[in-house]
């Protein structure tokens, strides 16, 4: 059998795992990067603060140098001191350029303007210094001393200002640091929050992922066990994970469904086969019965026409010889014979069957005289159809087996035909010897087991079981027959036949 190949778009578990891991790793790296960046910035901050402090201190140092060498130059007029003073001045100039950097770097207005003031002071200081050196070089000592005096005052002022600036800088940096700490604290909180969220969602994802795999698998194992135990009608395994598992689940579902369907199919086939076999057996049985009956009929029909004609001739001879009763008897035998020649398959009316029974009883009366009294009581319409040769074999049985001796004064057979409970009830009751229970079982068994055997007992009629089977085949039901018997008291055979009226 060709199964439909499943082709669904799915997201492989492999990719799910890779994706999840990548996202997680990326997030963790992200967090780590941010934390390290935060740390780096903090370090940078400290470095900046220290650099600035160092810068201000160096500036102080250079101011002292300028003042010191200028003063010495003023006193000794040496080239060396002049150069040193000029070098220190240049150094301040360089530092001033760096200051522009500091000016740009700050976002604090107060700091910006403080550095701005410092820059102006230093420029003025440098200018004064250069003026001092220049006037000294030119030999204007008085003016040079005056300039130097102002330079000293200015140096003093700048020094004070630098001291204040260092102090203020610490405050500004502290303020900035506090601000920075608040921010880094927030980063820390965000990182924790992110970590918690990543953690929680990872757990949820893991549980979801694990359950998504294990649940359908557990269900499949359970179903497989059920199938193995012979219960093919299993619950569908549900999975909508859009991965290989879903494919497997669907295939498994299809498989179990197919197994179930095939099982049902095989069951139906087996049932059909059984029915066919039974029917065949049934047909065979019918055929056997028919054959048997026909054989018996054939046996009884040894040249029936010749016998029938002969009997008629004898009957006429008997009448001619004034033996009317003999003639009548022979006629009855001839009619009986003719009735017997009918096909066993064809149904007859109750009337015909009763007439035939009457003929038979007449003959029996002639044969046995008044030793057996027969009573016929019909309380039903006579147009009901019943199978041919139903009453006579039963009556024959009663005659042949019902009574051991005819010495008994009251040997009676009652035939009652009536409609009861929508059935045609035919009851044949004798007050003969009766049958023991074991014997009754034996008779039934013998009739069933040796249908074809011809025994003296059933030689002249059809066996009881034979009649049952015929009736069952005719009516297609099996509750038609009942035997009641008691040893020494008699036997009652009751037929309960469905009502079939003759169509007009």
């Amino acid at each position: 059998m060709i199964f439909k190949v499943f082709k669904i778009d799915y997201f492989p578990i492999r990719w799910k795992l890779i994706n999840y891991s990548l996202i997680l790793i990326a997030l963790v790296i992200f967090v780590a990067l941010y934390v390290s960046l935060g740390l780096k910035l903090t370090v940078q901050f400290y470095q900046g603060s220290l650099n600035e402090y160092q810068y201000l201190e160096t500036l102080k140092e250079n101011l002292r140098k300028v003042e010191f060498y200028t003063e010495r130059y003023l006193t000794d007029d040496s080239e060396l001191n002049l150069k040193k003073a000029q070098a220190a001045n240049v150094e301040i100039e360089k530092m001033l350029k760096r200051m522009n950097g500091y000016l740009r770097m700050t976002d604090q207005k107060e700091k910006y303007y403080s550095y701005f003031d410092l820059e102006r002071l230093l420029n003025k200081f440098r200018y004064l210094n250069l003026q001092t050196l220049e006037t000294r070089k030119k030999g204007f000592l008085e003016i040079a001393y005056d300039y130097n005096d102002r330079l000293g005052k200015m140096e003093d002022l700048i020094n004070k200002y630098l001291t204040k600036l260092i102090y203020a800088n610490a405050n500004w940096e502290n303020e900035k640091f506090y601000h920075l700490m608040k921010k880094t604290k927030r980063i820390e909180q965000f990182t924790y929050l992110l970590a918690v969220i990543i953690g929680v969602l990872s757990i949820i994802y893991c549980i979801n992922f694990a359950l998504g795999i294990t649940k359908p698998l557990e269900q499949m194992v359970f179903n497989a066990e059920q199938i193995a135990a012979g219960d093919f009608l299993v619950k569908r395994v549900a999975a909508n994970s859009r991965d290989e598992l879903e494919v497997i689940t669907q295939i498994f579902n299809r498989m179990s469904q197919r197994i179930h369907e095939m099982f049902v199919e095989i069951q139906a086939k087996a049932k059909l086969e059984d029915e066919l076999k039974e029917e065949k057996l049934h047909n065979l049985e019918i055929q056997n019965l028919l054959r048997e009956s026909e054989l018996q009929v054939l046996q009884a029909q040894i040249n029936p026409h010749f016998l029938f004609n002969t009997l008629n001739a004898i009957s006429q001879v008997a009448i001619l010889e004034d033996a009317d009763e003999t003639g009548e008897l022979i006629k009855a035998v001839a009619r009986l014979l003719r009735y017997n020649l009918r096909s066993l398959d064809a149904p007859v009316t109750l009337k015909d069957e009763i007439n035939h029974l009457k003929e038979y009883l007449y003959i029996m009366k002639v044969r046995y005289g008044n030793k057996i009294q027969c009573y016929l009581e019909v309380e039903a319409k006579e147009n009901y159809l019943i199978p041919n040769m139903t009453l006579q074999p039963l009556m024959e049985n009663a005659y042949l087996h019902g009574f051991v001796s005819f010495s008994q004064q009251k040997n009676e057979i009652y035939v009652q035909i009536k409609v009861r409970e929508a059935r045609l009830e035919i009851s044949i009751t004798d007050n003969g010897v009766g049958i023991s229970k074991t014997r009754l079982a034996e008779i039934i068994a013998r009739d069933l087991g040796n249908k074809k055997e011809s025994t003296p007992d059933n030689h002249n009629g059809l066996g009881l079981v034979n009649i049952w089977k015929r009736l069952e085949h005719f009516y297609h039901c099996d509750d038609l027959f009942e035997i009641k018997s008691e040893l020494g008291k008699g036997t009652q055979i009751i037929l309960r036949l469905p009502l079939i009226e003759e169509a007009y």
Partner: protein
Amino acid sequence: MRKRLFILSLILFVIICIYLILQVNLILADIASGFASLNPAQMKATYRVAFIYQNNNQAFWKEVKRGARAATKGESIYVNFMESTKGQELQLVDYLRLAIDTNYQGIIIQGDDESSLPFIAEAWQAKIPTLTVVSDLPDSGRLAYVGTNNYYAGYVAGKILCQSIKKEQPKLAILSPLRRVDLKSSVAESIKIFGFREAISRKETNLPLWKKSNPTLIDSLITVRTLLQKEPQLDGIYATYPEGTLAVARAIFEKNLQQQIKVLGSGDLPEIREYLKNETLTASIVEYPYQIGYQAVREMLLYLREKRINVSNNIDVIILDRNRLEITGASK
């Protein structure tokens, strides 16, 4: 249903992550901006004004600064508050020199130190206009004075104190943050006390006792308690600063001397109002430092722009007594 929930939580997770990362990013950017270069042009104001003062009263100057800052709002002016405190190397004069040397466009200075007179003149020569605030140096060649009329403040205090004392020739005391000999270091304080003494002299009082205390509550309290112990016959005290006022009120209240000693204070604090309510304090002379700061900067701006100035800039004082508590409302 579970799948939907899962997808929903995943989306939520991504959104939260993005939000958090953006937040962290913002913070980092904020931190980094501290190191990044700023356009100095953003900083540059059209006018640079030096606000030079001697901080001997934290609360008072805080208010002055607040007022001055409020006046700069929306204006292209930068006011550099140059605060000189005791023990610091840079004093008023140094700052004044600094302001001149670094070419500030304007100087606002507390006219409390007479040694600053030549520098104010120098500034004027360098075409830097100077305003005096809180206390005045009328001979300095300053442009104008913005602040309380200290003489009037002291005079009113003396007058009210004398009126409240029924006694002839009452015995009075002054609680000041300055010693008598240091008076010259604070023009404002000296003028205030001068005004006070003028007022009380009309009642032919004895020379008032002079008590100096650091301008803190605890020091003032110690000074007042000692004074009360030593001078049980005292009829009235004038405290020239808010902490001193509180200290006197508390000491009087503790000793239950409200009926015997009348107190005239300075400043407007919730505690001072409480003492006014229960009549421990007779009245308090309230100055408006916020107004002083604000007015000073506005005047300077006016001059820098239009080269004109209002000659009279006296900021009124209020005599806060029991009856005026509700009218004036709670102080800031």
